[in-house]
């Protein structure tokens, strides 16, 4: 047996499932950040695997480079927001952060 494209896709789907589960059940803002990063990584595996197996160029890898940089930028902003929310509420439970609720 050699490692096939579908094996990578299965790993990616499992990571995606773990990320969705975390995003739906957790209420701690830090865990939500973890879940988002896991989801981004699952998508990146798909890009690289499809690029390696089905497409003879590096477009997929380039897209992943952009995606990683964007995820880093997004992570910085989210973590800053979490720190500010903690400073104001002394808590990071997202069900408590409801001041913007209409």
């Amino acid at each position, binding site marked *: 047996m050699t490692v096939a494209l579908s094996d990578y896709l299965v790993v990616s789907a499992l990571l995606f499932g773990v990320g969705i589960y975390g995003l739906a059940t957790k209420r701690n803002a830090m865990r939500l950040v973890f879940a988002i990063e896991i989801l981004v990584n699952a998508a990146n595996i798909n890009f690289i695997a499809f690029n390696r197996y089905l497409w003879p160029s590096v477009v997929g890898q380039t897209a992943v480079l952009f995606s990683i940089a964007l995820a*880093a930028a997004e992570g910085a902003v989210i973590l*800053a927001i979490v720190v500010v929310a903690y400073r104001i509420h002394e808590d990071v439970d997202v069900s408590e952060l409801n001041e913007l609720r209409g």
Partner: protein
Amino acid sequence: MVDATDATFIALSVATVGGAVVALEAKEIIYGAVGLAASFFGVASLFFLLDSPFVAIFQITVYVGAVAVLILFTVMLVREGKGIGDSAGPGAAFATLVTVVALVFSLVESFFAAGFPDASEQATAPNFIDIGKLLSGQYAPVLELLALVLAASALAALTLAKVDPVSKTGEKEAR
């Protein structure tokens, strides 16, 4: 027959998915952050297996080197809250679990039904010189835009994190 590549792939997959599970389910959130770093590292190793060393090293520097450390520091700054439960109730968690298992199962099922050509990697591994050509040619405007976005996000993070003593006491009194 399981050869060395398969064994490596299986070990890395287990480390990646296991790290993600630890990240979400560890009792102490600091262990969760370490599990997340392990998961990032596993993903980088999978990139190596897929003959994409440049992206793998980029992943290690940015995710393991920057994002994971940033998360660790934030976890240190943000202690657990007032003891309110971390998760939704057990009923909601179970319902989500069932939904997610069904989702993953249907995804996997569709991968196998799609009939991708098995074990037929492209003959030549993509060369990272081509990445440089793409980045400096066709995708140069995207790169410039990305640089602007990164600068904006850094500015935004700094602005958000700036402690303003006057407004801070004002908020304290208002509460």
